[in-house]
């Protein structure tokens, strides 16, 4: 490459290109990071919302069953059925979003919902209820007794399972969060590396401009001043390339012409 102007322009354009690349990398990595964080947060809030819905429906179901079984409020049977349907719908919704690793827990949860529904159906049809296989006994329905002995344990099991689901679901999020904490380092690494390369290039740029641009001009200037003031020979000690070399050569030629003109004048006199 020839020409100091061309060299500086190319070097400057390289720095601009690197800056642009660094900017793009930063944007790309930050948007990735933002996307990952958003995914984790939304998964977390979705799980909490689902668990809350499940517990609320179960609570509604329980309240309705108390009204039906203990206080003989027949009109609450509809609320009981609705709560039961909601539970099934929520479970399906959880299945759709939950990772495969916690499907086992969801299967248990689903089974407990079926148990609750089955118990309710049995009660509503005034049939006998099998509470425990070991103590299976046929008896007439006693609302309060049925609720305490049959329904409440099933309800408690269901609530416990929902809590377990929340724990498992958060456990599933934890590795993702850990991965993200590692990825933060990964996300910053390209930006840091580009920054380091840029610092190295800017330092080199400064060095080269100083060595091949500034220093020769300063030396030429000083040498020219020394020549004009003290008549010292014009011999700047520096590396000169391109136009600066031409400048040096031209000054040298001019000095030589001036010297020969002076000599001719002296000879003529």
């Amino acid at each position: 490459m020839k020409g100091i102007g061309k060299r500086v322009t190319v070097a400057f354009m390289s720095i601009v290109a690197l800056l642009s690349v660094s900017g793009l990398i930063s944007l790309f990595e930050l948007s990735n990071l933002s996307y990952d964080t958003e995914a984790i947060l939304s998964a977390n809030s979705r799980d909490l919302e689902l668990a809350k819905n499940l517990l609320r429906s179960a609570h509604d179901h329980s309240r309705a069953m108390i009204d039906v079984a203990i206080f003989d409020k027949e009109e609450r049977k509809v609320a009981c059925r609705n709560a039961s349907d909601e539970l099934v719908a929520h479970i399906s919704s959880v299945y759709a979003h939950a990772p495969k690793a916690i499907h086992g827990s969801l299967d248990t949860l689903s089974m407990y919902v079926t148990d609750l529904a089955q118990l309710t159906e049995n009660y509503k049809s005034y049939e006998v209820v099998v509470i425990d296989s070991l103590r299976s006994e046929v008896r007439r329905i006693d609302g309060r007794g049925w609720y305490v002995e049959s329904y409440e344990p099933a309800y408690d099991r269901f609530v416990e399972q929902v809590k377990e689901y929340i724990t498992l679901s958060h456990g599933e999020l934890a590795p993702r969060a850990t991965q993200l904490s590692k990825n933060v380092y990964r996300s910053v690494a390209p930006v840091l590396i580009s920054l380091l390369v840029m610092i190295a290039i800017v330092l080199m740029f400064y060095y080269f401009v100083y060595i091949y641009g500034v220093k020769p001009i300063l030396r030429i200037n000083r040498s020219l001043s020394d020549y004009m003031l003290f008549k010292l020979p014009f011999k700047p000690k520096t590396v000169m390339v391109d136009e600066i070399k031409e400048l040096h050569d031209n000054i040298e030629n001019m000095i030589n012409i001036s010297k020969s003109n002076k000599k001719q004048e002296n000879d003529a006199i």
Partner: protein
Amino acid sequence: MRFSVILRYVGTVVLCLSAFMAVSAGISLVSGDTGFYPLLLSSLLTLLLGAFPMIFVSKADSITTKEGFMIVVGSWVVSCVVGMFPYLIWGGEFSLVNAWFESVSGFTTTGASILTDIEALPQGLLFWRSATNWIGGVGVVMFALLVLPSLGTNKMALSGIELSSLAKDNYRYRTQMVVKILLVIYIGLTVVSTILLKVAGMRWFDAVNHAMSVCATGGFSTKNASVGFYDSPLIEWILIVVMFISSLHFGLIYSTFARKANNIFRSEVVRVYVAIIVGAALTIGASLSFSGTYDNIFTSLRQSVFQVVSIITTTGFATADTNLWTPFAIVILIILSIICGCAGSTSGGAKVDRVLLYAKVLKARLRGQQHPNAIIRVRLDGILQDDRQVNTVTLFLTTYFILIIAGTLTSTLFGMDLLSSFSSSVAFIGNVGPGFGEVGSYDNYAAMPSLLKIQGTILMLMGRLEIFGFIQFLFIRMWR
């Protein structure tokens, strides 16, 4: 000293690395793994870093010895820095210190790793790992000389610094010829071993990676269980042969093919080297057989030969957990990892040439005491060794052992046991790779404290630059 000229030549070496990163990125693109973006980005950044000095600095007509030293050592250090870019960007197990360790270990062909799960790495990054071994095998500057004919007249100055004085003895050719010999033997051996490994049952990708690694006597494998993963006697024997050839003086290999007088079969150093290998393999094999480590004598010998060749050539491939071997076998293997291969090869370590010369000097001194007036000359491979050469070798070996002791001392300070500390120091400075104890052939350096990892990388670089090159670099300002 012209700093700008140094920057230009170091930049040229960096450009070679950029090309290899681009190839690795291509591999990642084809295999569709996660290594593409880190490798491409690293390649672009490296390209810019290497090409930038060329904008301003024109090709120098000549370079001084001092500038040559700066170029060679600077190229090694900058290569190691640039080499960790893909690792750092990819992430995973690579922290800053781990990436530096892996990069230095790759370029110096040490082959020690901090990775607990090598197979988790994308293919492009695995290729880059092997490429660092391959580039470092002949020396980063020699590699640039091999592939860049534009370096022209400065080849002599640079190759003179990169090659050790002992290595130069067997190159009885002009510099241009030496570079051609290296090119033909190194690339030829890599191609041949790739084909042989493929035929023996490896996948193309694994065959290329193992071939690059074995020709450089590096030891980076694509498998967690190293060569032991294949459990194939054929693959092991192919690797044994290639490791052995790679640890011989490349000039002698060329001379043998060219039917010159100074060939492998007439080389005193090679004869001693072969005797050491055979002796060590047989004694270790017998020890393993008698101790009942393996079922039969053949398995004992097979494992023994592979491990002896792997250690003495400083490759560091593993087919067995040598920590489970007898103490006698472990001691022999540690001695082998101090002696190492021949000068002028891709092997690291003290080199068998120096050890042999040292033994000859010792013998000459003893004879000198018996016959005080006798003039006893020391020759190595028929070449008369002057006092300067003898002193250099003695000083080298002394410094080598001082550094091993210093490394051991520091490691024990950090709570490592004596065997692990000593063997890891020997493995680092000799560019062998695996040690014993906590850093055995089937273990890694992941658990090592960061400061010890950094110390290890300094030892690796010192070993690769034959100690004095590195020390000279530190005192470059005092060089008048």
